Protein backbone atom coordinates (compact mmCIF):
# COMPACT_ATOMS: atom_id res chain seq x y z
CA UNK A 1 0.00 0.00 0.00
CA UNK A 2 2.68 2.43 0.88
CA UNK A 3 4.45 1.44 -2.31
CA UNK A 4 1.47 2.39 -4.30
CA UNK A 5 1.16 5.69 -2.52
CA UNK A 6 4.76 6.61 -3.09
CA UNK A 7 4.35 6.12 -6.82
CA UNK A 8 1.52 8.58 -6.90
CA UNK A 9 1.76 12.27 -7.15
CA UNK A 10 3.76 13.40 -4.14
CA UNK A 11 1.44 16.27 -3.39
CA UNK A 12 -1.39 13.92 -2.63
CA UNK A 13 0.42 11.59 -0.30
CA UNK A 14 0.01 13.71 2.83
CA UNK A 15 -3.67 14.29 2.28
CA UNK A 16 -4.30 10.63 1.56
CA UNK A 17 -2.47 9.68 4.73
CA UNK A 18 -4.41 12.23 6.67
CA UNK A 19 -7.64 10.97 5.22
CA UNK A 20 -6.81 7.37 5.98
CA UNK A 21 -5.91 8.31 9.50
CA UNK A 22 -9.10 10.23 9.94
CA UNK A 23 -11.15 7.38 8.59
CA UNK A 24 -9.36 4.98 10.83
CA UNK A 25 -10.33 7.15 13.76
CA UNK A 26 -13.90 7.33 12.66
CA UNK A 27 -14.19 3.62 12.08
CA UNK A 28 -12.69 3.15 15.46
CA UNK A 29 -14.89 5.57 17.27
CA UNK A 30 -16.62 2.82 19.15
CA UNK A 31 -13.27 1.54 20.25
CA UNK A 32 -12.51 4.68 22.22
CA UNK A 33 -13.34 4.77 25.81
CA UNK A 34 -14.75 8.22 25.79
CA UNK A 35 -13.47 11.67 24.78
CA UNK A 36 -10.49 11.59 27.12
CA UNK A 37 -9.28 8.38 25.53
CA UNK A 38 -9.72 9.88 22.09
CA UNK A 39 -7.80 12.98 23.13
CA UNK A 40 -5.00 10.81 24.47
CA UNK A 41 -4.83 8.97 21.16
CA UNK A 42 -4.82 12.23 19.22
CA UNK A 43 -2.08 13.58 21.44
CA UNK A 44 0.23 10.80 20.28
CA UNK A 45 0.38 12.42 16.86
CA UNK A 46 2.19 15.31 18.50
CA UNK A 47 4.92 12.92 19.53
CA UNK A 48 5.97 14.97 22.51
CA UNK A 49 6.04 14.50 26.22
CA UNK A 50 2.50 14.87 27.51
CA UNK A 51 3.68 17.64 29.81
CA UNK A 52 4.71 19.75 26.83
CA UNK A 53 1.73 18.98 24.71
CA UNK A 54 0.00 21.78 22.85
CA UNK A 55 -3.52 21.73 24.17
CA UNK A 56 -4.57 24.28 21.59
CA UNK A 57 -3.40 22.04 18.79
CA UNK A 58 -5.06 19.09 20.48
CA UNK A 59 -8.32 20.97 20.78
CA UNK A 60 -8.19 21.77 17.09
CA UNK A 61 -7.51 18.15 16.23
CA UNK A 62 -10.43 17.03 18.31
CA UNK A 63 -12.78 19.58 16.85
CA UNK A 64 -11.68 18.62 13.36
CA UNK A 65 -12.36 15.01 14.20
CA UNK A 66 -15.85 15.79 15.43
CA UNK A 67 -16.47 17.94 12.36
CA UNK A 68 -15.45 15.14 10.04
CA UNK A 69 -17.54 12.65 11.93
CA UNK A 70 -20.48 14.95 11.54
CA UNK A 71 -19.87 15.39 7.81
CA UNK A 72 -19.76 11.63 7.47
CA UNK A 73 -23.03 11.50 9.37
CA UNK A 74 -21.54 9.40 12.10
CA UNK A 75 -23.48 9.76 15.25
CA UNK A 76 -21.29 10.62 18.17
CA UNK A 77 -22.24 9.96 21.74
CA UNK A 78 -23.30 12.98 23.74
CA UNK A 79 -20.17 13.12 25.83
CA UNK A 80 -18.04 13.52 22.72
CA UNK A 81 -20.12 16.53 21.79
CA UNK A 82 -19.95 17.94 25.29
CA UNK A 83 -16.18 17.65 25.13
CA UNK A 84 -16.18 19.33 21.73
CA UNK A 85 -18.15 22.25 23.08
CA UNK A 86 -15.84 22.56 26.02
CA UNK A 87 -12.75 22.41 23.82
CA UNK A 88 -14.20 25.08 21.55
CA UNK A 89 -14.65 27.25 24.61
CA UNK A 90 -11.13 26.44 25.75
CA UNK A 91 -9.76 27.28 22.32
CA UNK A 92 -11.39 30.70 22.39
CA UNK A 93 -9.99 31.33 25.83
CA UNK A 94 -6.53 30.39 24.71
CA UNK A 95 -6.68 32.54 21.58
CA UNK A 96 -8.33 35.67 22.92
CA UNK A 97 -6.49 38.02 25.25
CA UNK A 98 -7.70 37.50 28.81
CA UNK A 99 -10.57 39.69 29.87
CA UNK A 100 -9.57 41.32 33.18
CA UNK A 101 -13.20 41.58 34.29
CA UNK A 102 -13.79 37.91 33.68
CA UNK A 103 -13.71 35.78 36.75
CA UNK A 104 -12.91 32.14 36.75
CA UNK A 105 -9.97 30.15 35.52
CA UNK A 106 -7.82 31.32 32.65
CA UNK A 107 -7.42 29.38 29.47
CA UNK A 108 -3.95 28.37 30.59
CA UNK A 109 -5.26 26.93 33.82
CA UNK A 110 -7.91 24.95 31.99
CA UNK A 111 -5.36 23.75 29.45
CA UNK A 112 -2.96 22.74 32.20
CA UNK A 113 -5.67 20.72 33.87
CA UNK A 114 -6.55 18.95 30.66
CA UNK A 115 -2.89 18.13 30.14
CA UNK A 116 -2.75 16.83 33.70
CA UNK A 117 -5.78 14.62 33.11
CA UNK A 118 -4.25 13.18 29.98
CA UNK A 119 -0.94 12.56 31.68
CA UNK A 120 -2.68 10.96 34.64
CA UNK A 121 -4.74 8.68 32.43
CA UNK A 122 -1.64 7.70 30.51
CA UNK A 123 0.20 7.04 33.78
CA UNK A 124 -2.63 4.86 35.05
CA UNK A 125 -2.61 2.86 31.83
CA UNK A 126 1.09 2.25 32.17
CA UNK A 127 0.65 1.33 35.80
CA UNK A 128 -2.10 -1.10 34.85
CA UNK A 129 0.16 -2.68 32.25
CA UNK A 130 2.98 -3.01 34.76
CA UNK A 131 0.62 -4.52 37.28
CA UNK A 132 -0.63 -7.11 34.83
CA UNK A 133 2.92 -7.91 33.80
CA UNK A 134 3.76 -8.98 37.34
CA UNK A 135 4.04 -12.59 38.33
CA UNK A 136 0.55 -13.66 39.20
CA UNK A 137 -0.77 -16.18 41.65
CA UNK A 138 -2.09 -19.24 39.89
CA UNK A 139 -0.13 -18.43 36.76
CA UNK A 140 3.47 -17.78 37.72
CA UNK A 141 3.55 -18.75 41.33
CA UNK A 142 1.32 -21.09 43.21
CA UNK A 143 -0.28 -21.64 46.57
CA UNK A 144 -0.17 -24.83 48.54
CA UNK A 145 -1.96 -27.41 46.45
CA UNK A 146 -2.76 -29.78 49.24
CA UNK A 147 -3.79 -27.69 52.19
CA UNK A 148 -4.67 -29.47 55.36
CA UNK A 149 -7.87 -28.41 56.95
CA UNK A 150 -7.90 -26.82 60.30
CA UNK A 151 -10.62 -28.32 62.35
CA UNK A 152 -12.41 -25.82 64.45
CA UNK A 153 -14.02 -27.01 67.58
CA UNK A 154 -16.03 -24.72 69.73
CA UNK A 155 -16.72 -26.01 73.15
CA UNK A 156 -19.17 -24.32 75.39
CA UNK A 157 -19.01 -25.10 79.04
CA UNK A 158 -21.77 -24.10 81.35
CA UNK A 159 -21.21 -23.17 84.91
CA UNK A 160 -23.51 -23.18 87.83
CA UNK A 161 -22.74 -23.38 91.49
CA UNK A 162 -24.57 -25.15 94.22
CA UNK A 163 -25.69 -21.80 95.52
CA UNK A 164 -27.21 -20.99 92.13
CA UNK A 165 -29.01 -24.27 92.23
CA UNK A 166 -30.39 -23.83 95.70
CA UNK A 167 -31.32 -20.26 95.09
CA UNK A 168 -33.20 -21.29 91.98
CA UNK A 169 -35.08 -23.89 93.90
CA UNK A 170 -35.86 -21.53 96.72
CA UNK A 171 -37.14 -19.03 94.21
CA UNK A 172 -39.59 -21.51 92.78
CA UNK A 173 -40.78 -22.95 96.02
CA UNK A 174 -41.32 -19.66 97.76
CA UNK A 175 -42.75 -17.74 94.89
CA UNK A 176 -46.14 -17.56 96.50
CA UNK A 177 -45.60 -17.03 100.16
CA UNK A 178 -42.25 -15.38 100.13
CA UNK A 179 -42.10 -11.65 100.68
CA UNK A 180 -38.82 -9.92 100.32
CA UNK A 181 -37.37 -8.25 103.34
CA UNK A 182 -34.00 -6.83 103.99
CA UNK A 183 -32.18 -8.51 106.77
CA UNK A 184 -28.92 -7.42 108.30
CA UNK A 185 -29.04 -4.31 106.19
CA UNK A 186 -31.40 -2.09 108.08
CA UNK A 187 -30.15 1.12 106.51
CA UNK A 188 -31.23 -0.03 103.07
CA UNK A 189 -34.63 0.83 101.75
CA UNK A 190 -35.26 -1.28 98.68
CA UNK A 191 -36.93 -0.19 95.53
CA UNK A 192 -39.54 -2.87 95.95
CA UNK A 193 -40.45 -1.40 99.28
CA UNK A 194 -40.63 2.04 97.77
CA UNK A 195 -42.77 0.79 94.92
CA UNK A 196 -45.08 -0.95 97.30
CA UNK A 197 -45.45 2.16 99.40
CA UNK A 198 -45.91 4.54 96.52
CA UNK A 199 -48.48 2.46 94.80
CA UNK A 200 -50.50 2.52 97.95
CA UNK A 201 -50.29 6.28 98.18
CA UNK A 202 -50.74 7.15 94.54
CA UNK A 203 -54.48 7.43 94.52
CA UNK A 204 -54.22 10.22 97.05
CA UNK A 205 -51.92 12.51 95.08
CA UNK A 206 -53.77 14.11 92.23
CA UNK A 207 -51.68 17.28 92.67
CA UNK A 208 -47.96 17.86 92.39
CA UNK A 209 -46.34 16.57 95.53
CA UNK A 210 -42.71 16.75 96.57
CA UNK A 211 -41.11 13.37 96.17
CA UNK A 212 -39.53 13.77 99.60
CA UNK A 213 -42.96 13.54 101.19
CA UNK A 214 -43.16 9.92 100.05
CA UNK A 215 -40.29 8.90 102.28
CA UNK A 216 -41.51 6.46 104.88
CA UNK A 217 -41.57 7.27 108.57
CA UNK A 218 -38.34 6.57 110.35
CA UNK A 219 -36.30 7.04 107.21
CA UNK A 220 -36.06 10.80 107.25
CA UNK A 221 -33.82 11.64 110.16
CA UNK A 222 -30.77 9.44 109.83
CA UNK A 223 -28.75 10.59 106.77
CA UNK A 224 -27.80 7.08 105.66
CA UNK A 225 -31.37 5.89 105.85
CA UNK A 226 -32.67 9.02 104.19
CA UNK A 227 -30.23 8.64 101.32
CA UNK A 228 -31.28 5.07 100.73
CA UNK A 229 -34.97 5.88 100.98
CA UNK A 230 -34.60 8.85 98.64
CA UNK A 231 -32.77 6.82 96.05
CA UNK A 232 -35.27 3.97 96.24
CA UNK A 233 -38.24 6.30 96.10
CA UNK A 234 -36.80 8.14 93.15
CA UNK A 235 -36.08 4.89 91.33
CA UNK A 236 -39.56 3.66 92.10
CA UNK A 237 -41.07 6.87 90.79
CA UNK A 238 -39.19 6.45 87.52
CA UNK A 239 -40.55 2.95 87.24
CA UNK A 240 -44.06 4.16 87.91
CA UNK A 241 -43.65 6.96 85.38
CA UNK A 242 -42.49 4.38 82.89
CA UNK A 243 -45.64 2.42 83.59
CA UNK A 244 -47.62 5.54 82.88
CA UNK A 245 -49.02 5.69 86.40
CA UNK A 246 -47.51 9.00 87.45
CA UNK A 247 -45.90 12.11 86.03
CA UNK A 248 -42.66 13.63 87.24
CA UNK A 249 -41.44 17.18 87.01
CA UNK A 250 -38.53 19.21 88.23
CA UNK A 251 -39.00 22.95 87.67
CA UNK A 252 -35.28 23.65 87.54
CA UNK A 253 -31.94 22.09 88.29
CA UNK A 254 -31.67 20.92 91.90
CA UNK A 255 -35.23 21.98 92.58
CA UNK A 256 -37.36 19.46 94.44
CA UNK A 257 -38.69 16.68 92.27
CA UNK A 258 -42.43 16.50 92.22
CA UNK A 259 -44.83 13.82 91.15
CA UNK A 260 -48.52 13.44 90.67
CA UNK A 261 -50.87 10.69 89.69
CA UNK A 262 -51.54 10.59 86.03
CA UNK A 263 -55.20 11.15 85.37
CA UNK A 264 -57.12 8.22 84.01
CA UNK A 265 -58.29 10.10 80.95
CA UNK A 266 -54.66 10.94 80.04
CA UNK A 267 -53.63 7.36 79.87
Amino acid at each position, binding site marked *: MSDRESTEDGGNVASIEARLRAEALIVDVDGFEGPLDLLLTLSRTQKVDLRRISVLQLAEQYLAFVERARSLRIELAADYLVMAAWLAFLKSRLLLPPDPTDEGPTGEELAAHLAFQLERLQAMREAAARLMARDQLGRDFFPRGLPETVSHRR*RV*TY*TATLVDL*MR*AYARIRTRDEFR*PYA*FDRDAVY*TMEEALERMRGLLGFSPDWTDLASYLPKGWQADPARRRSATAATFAASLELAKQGLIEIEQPETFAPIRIRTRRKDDR
Partner: protein
Amino acid sequence: MTADTPDEPEKSLFEAPPMGEQERMVEAILFASAEPVSVAEMASRMPQGCDPAEALQHLRRRYEGRGVRLQRVGDKWAFRTAPDLGFLLQKESVETRKLSRAAIETLAIIAYHQPVTRAEIEEIRGVSVSRGTIDLLMELDWIRLGRRRMTPGRPVTFVVTERFLDHFGLESARDLPGLKELRAAGLLDSRPPPGKSGDEDEEEEEGNDGQPDMFGEDGAQGAEDEWNES
Protein backbone atom coordinates in the same frame (compact mmCIF):
# COMPACT_ATOMS: atom_id res chain seq x y z
CA MET B 1 28.81 -39.54 24.68
CA THR B 2 29.73 -40.49 28.19
CA ALA B 3 27.12 -38.34 29.75
CA ASP B 4 28.05 -39.10 33.33
CA THR B 5 30.62 -36.45 33.90
CA PRO B 6 29.60 -34.60 36.99
CA ASP B 7 32.73 -32.50 36.96
CA GLU B 8 32.01 -31.33 33.44
CA PRO B 9 32.37 -27.57 33.57
CA GLU B 10 30.94 -26.34 30.26
CA LYS B 11 27.23 -26.53 29.68
CA SER B 12 25.80 -28.58 26.90
CA LEU B 13 22.33 -28.32 25.51
CA PHE B 14 21.25 -31.49 27.20
CA GLU B 15 22.86 -30.99 30.52
CA ALA B 16 20.49 -31.28 33.41
CA PRO B 17 20.22 -28.40 35.87
CA PRO B 18 22.43 -28.70 38.96
CA MET B 19 21.08 -30.93 41.71
CA GLY B 20 20.31 -27.92 43.89
CA GLU B 21 18.04 -26.61 41.17
CA GLN B 22 16.41 -29.98 40.74
CA GLU B 23 15.75 -30.04 44.44
CA ARG B 24 14.03 -26.65 44.19
CA MET B 25 11.93 -27.95 41.33
CA VAL B 26 10.81 -31.04 43.18
CA GLU B 27 10.04 -28.88 46.17
CA ALA B 28 7.85 -26.52 44.13
CA ILE B 29 6.05 -29.35 42.34
CA LEU B 30 5.26 -31.18 45.54
CA PHE B 31 4.22 -28.01 47.27
CA ALA B 32 1.79 -26.87 44.61
CA SER B 33 0.31 -30.17 43.59
CA ALA B 34 -3.15 -30.99 44.82
CA GLU B 35 -2.25 -34.64 45.26
CA PRO B 36 0.81 -36.76 45.84
CA VAL B 37 3.13 -36.91 42.83
CA SER B 38 5.04 -39.87 41.48
CA VAL B 39 8.69 -39.71 40.48
CA ALA B 40 7.72 -40.38 36.87
CA GLU B 41 5.31 -37.47 36.93
CA MET B 42 7.99 -35.18 38.32
CA ALA B 43 10.45 -36.33 35.68
CA SER B 44 7.95 -35.59 32.95
CA ARG B 45 7.54 -32.05 34.17
CA MET B 46 11.20 -31.30 34.83
CA PRO B 47 13.77 -30.50 32.16
CA GLN B 48 15.37 -33.42 30.42
CA GLY B 49 18.10 -35.27 32.23
CA CYS B 50 16.82 -34.47 35.68
CA ASP B 51 16.87 -37.10 38.36
CA PRO B 52 13.89 -36.40 40.61
CA ALA B 53 14.51 -39.55 42.65
CA GLU B 54 17.84 -38.26 43.78
CA ALA B 55 16.52 -34.73 44.27
CA LEU B 56 13.81 -36.23 46.46
CA GLN B 57 16.39 -37.86 48.70
CA HIS B 58 18.15 -34.52 49.17
CA LEU B 59 14.89 -32.78 49.78
CA ARG B 60 13.74 -35.39 52.22
CA ARG B 61 16.87 -34.97 54.23
CA ARG B 62 16.48 -31.22 54.16
CA TYR B 63 13.03 -31.45 55.70
CA GLU B 64 14.03 -33.90 58.39
CA GLY B 65 13.02 -32.54 61.75
CA ARG B 66 11.18 -29.63 60.19
CA GLY B 67 7.54 -28.63 60.67
CA VAL B 68 6.60 -30.48 57.54
CA ARG B 69 8.16 -33.56 56.10
CA LEU B 70 8.33 -35.36 52.85
CA GLN B 71 6.21 -38.44 53.00
CA ARG B 72 5.81 -41.40 50.73
CA VAL B 73 2.22 -42.22 49.84
CA GLY B 74 2.25 -45.48 47.90
CA ASP B 75 4.68 -44.78 45.11
CA LYS B 76 4.03 -41.07 45.26
CA TRP B 77 5.30 -38.25 47.39
CA ALA B 78 3.73 -35.40 49.31
CA PHE B 79 4.48 -32.87 52.01
CA ARG B 80 2.72 -33.52 55.27
CA THR B 81 2.64 -31.81 58.62
CA ALA B 82 5.04 -33.36 61.09
CA PRO B 83 2.95 -35.69 63.25
CA ASP B 84 3.93 -34.03 66.51
CA LEU B 85 2.52 -30.72 65.27
CA GLY B 86 -0.93 -32.03 64.42
CA PHE B 87 -2.33 -30.08 67.33
CA LEU B 88 -1.65 -26.86 65.44
CA LEU B 89 -4.30 -27.83 62.95
CA GLN B 90 -6.95 -27.86 65.57
CA LYS B 91 -8.51 -24.74 66.72
CA GLU B 92 -10.42 -24.98 69.88
CA SER B 93 -12.24 -22.27 71.60
CA VAL B 94 -13.85 -22.74 74.95
CA GLU B 95 -16.63 -20.49 75.93
CA THR B 96 -17.97 -20.41 79.41
CA ARG B 97 -21.57 -19.49 79.81
CA LYS B 98 -23.73 -19.21 82.80
CA LEU B 99 -26.54 -21.66 82.85
CA SER B 100 -29.79 -19.94 81.94
CA ARG B 101 -32.35 -19.39 84.61
CA ALA B 102 -34.75 -21.81 82.98
CA ALA B 103 -32.05 -24.48 82.95
CA ILE B 104 -30.94 -23.99 86.52
CA GLU B 105 -34.51 -24.04 87.77
CA THR B 106 -35.28 -27.17 85.84
CA LEU B 107 -32.13 -28.74 87.14
CA ALA B 108 -33.01 -27.75 90.70
CA ILE B 109 -36.44 -29.28 90.43
CA ILE B 110 -35.00 -32.51 89.07
CA ALA B 111 -32.43 -32.59 91.85
CA TYR B 112 -34.98 -32.00 94.60
CA HIS B 113 -37.79 -34.11 93.23
CA GLN B 114 -36.15 -36.90 91.32
CA PRO B 115 -37.36 -39.03 89.72
CA VAL B 116 -39.62 -36.40 88.17
CA THR B 117 -41.57 -36.25 84.94
CA ARG B 118 -41.64 -33.36 82.57
CA ALA B 119 -45.24 -32.60 83.43
CA GLU B 120 -44.29 -32.37 87.09
CA ILE B 121 -41.45 -30.03 86.35
CA GLU B 122 -43.82 -27.81 84.45
CA GLU B 123 -46.31 -27.87 87.22
CA ILE B 124 -43.72 -26.81 89.76
CA ARG B 125 -42.16 -24.13 87.60
CA GLY B 126 -45.47 -22.88 86.32
CA VAL B 127 -44.11 -22.61 82.80
CA SER B 128 -43.49 -25.14 80.11
CA VAL B 129 -40.05 -26.69 79.86
CA SER B 130 -38.45 -26.26 76.51
CA ARG B 131 -36.94 -29.20 74.72
CA GLY B 132 -33.64 -27.31 74.47
CA THR B 133 -33.38 -26.97 78.23
CA ILE B 134 -33.69 -30.69 78.79
CA ASP B 135 -31.31 -31.42 75.92
CA LEU B 136 -28.72 -29.06 77.31
CA LEU B 137 -28.85 -30.63 80.75
CA MET B 138 -28.59 -34.08 79.19
CA GLU B 139 -25.68 -32.96 77.10
CA LEU B 140 -23.93 -31.64 80.15
CA ASP B 141 -24.53 -35.07 81.61
CA TRP B 142 -26.12 -33.54 84.68
CA ILE B 143 -29.43 -35.31 84.21
CA ARG B 144 -30.43 -38.57 82.63
CA LEU B 145 -33.55 -40.57 82.04
CA GLY B 146 -34.79 -42.52 85.05
CA ARG B 147 -37.38 -45.25 85.12
CA ARG B 148 -40.66 -44.73 83.40
CA ARG B 149 -43.45 -43.80 85.77
CA MET B 150 -45.98 -46.62 86.12
CA THR B 151 -48.87 -44.33 85.37
CA PRO B 152 -51.01 -43.86 82.26
CA GLY B 153 -48.83 -42.89 79.35
CA ARG B 154 -45.80 -44.28 81.17
CA PRO B 155 -43.97 -40.94 81.09
CA VAL B 156 -40.23 -40.88 81.36
CA THR B 157 -38.66 -39.44 84.47
CA PHE B 158 -35.48 -37.49 84.94
CA VAL B 159 -32.86 -37.98 87.61
CA VAL B 160 -29.54 -36.29 88.27
CA THR B 161 -26.29 -38.05 87.44
CA GLU B 162 -23.07 -38.87 89.20
CA ARG B 163 -21.50 -36.07 87.26
CA PHE B 164 -24.06 -33.69 88.66
CA LEU B 165 -23.18 -34.70 92.19
CA ASP B 166 -19.56 -34.40 91.32
CA HIS B 167 -19.92 -30.96 89.84
CA PHE B 168 -21.90 -29.59 92.75
CA GLY B 169 -19.81 -31.32 95.38
CA LEU B 170 -22.61 -33.47 96.73
CA GLU B 171 -22.38 -36.99 98.02
CA SER B 172 -25.99 -37.68 97.15
CA ALA B 173 -28.99 -35.70 96.06
CA ARG B 174 -30.38 -36.14 99.55
CA ASP B 175 -27.68 -33.84 100.83
CA LEU B 176 -29.35 -30.90 99.18
CA PRO B 177 -30.51 -28.52 101.89
CA GLY B 178 -34.19 -28.10 102.54
CA LEU B 179 -36.16 -24.89 102.36
CA LYS B 180 -35.76 -24.10 106.02
CA GLU B 181 -32.06 -24.50 105.81
CA LEU B 182 -31.96 -22.35 102.72
CA ARG B 183 -33.72 -19.58 104.51
CA ALA B 184 -31.54 -19.92 107.54
CA ALA B 185 -28.51 -19.71 105.33
CA GLY B 186 -29.76 -16.44 103.90
CA LEU B 187 -30.28 -17.98 100.49
CA LEU B 188 -33.78 -16.73 100.32
CA ASP B 189 -32.57 -13.19 100.12
CA SER B 190 -34.83 -11.42 97.73
CA ARG B 191 -31.95 -9.86 95.89
CA PRO B 192 -30.67 -11.85 93.02
CA PRO B 193 -26.90 -11.89 93.26
CA PRO B 194 -25.12 -9.39 91.04
CA GLY B 195 -24.80 -10.54 87.47
CA LYS B 196 -27.91 -12.66 87.60
CA SER B 197 -29.92 -10.09 85.79
CA GLY B 198 -29.03 -11.49 82.39
CA ASP B 199 -31.43 -14.29 83.10
CA GLU B 200 -34.44 -12.09 82.73
CA ASP B 201 -34.66 -12.42 78.98
CA GLU B 202 -34.69 -16.13 79.24
CA GLU B 203 -37.54 -16.03 81.63
CA GLU B 204 -39.61 -13.71 79.54
CA GLU B 205 -39.17 -16.00 76.63
CA GLU B 206 -40.94 -18.71 78.49
CA GLY B 207 -43.65 -16.43 79.61
CA ASN B 208 -44.39 -14.75 82.86
CA ASP B 209 -47.04 -17.14 83.92
CA GLY B 210 -46.90 -17.88 87.55
CA GLN B 211 -45.37 -14.52 88.27
CA PRO B 212 -48.39 -12.38 88.77
CA ASP B 213 -46.45 -9.92 90.83
CA MET B 214 -44.92 -7.68 88.21
CA PHE B 215 -43.25 -5.69 90.91
CA GLY B 216 -41.66 -8.62 92.56
CA GLU B 217 -37.96 -8.99 92.75
CA ASP B 218 -37.47 -9.72 89.10
CA GLY B 219 -39.45 -6.86 87.70
CA ALA B 220 -37.69 -4.45 89.95
CA GLN B 221 -34.31 -5.87 89.13
CA GLY B 222 -35.05 -5.65 85.44
CA ALA B 223 -36.08 -2.07 85.71
CA GLU B 224 -32.98 -1.22 87.67
CA ASP B 225 -30.82 -2.72 85.01
CA GLU B 226 -32.38 -0.61 82.38
CA TRP B 227 -31.50 2.46 84.32
CA ASN B 228 -27.99 1.34 84.83
CA GLU B 229 -27.49 0.88 81.16
CA SER B 230 -28.56 4.37 80.24
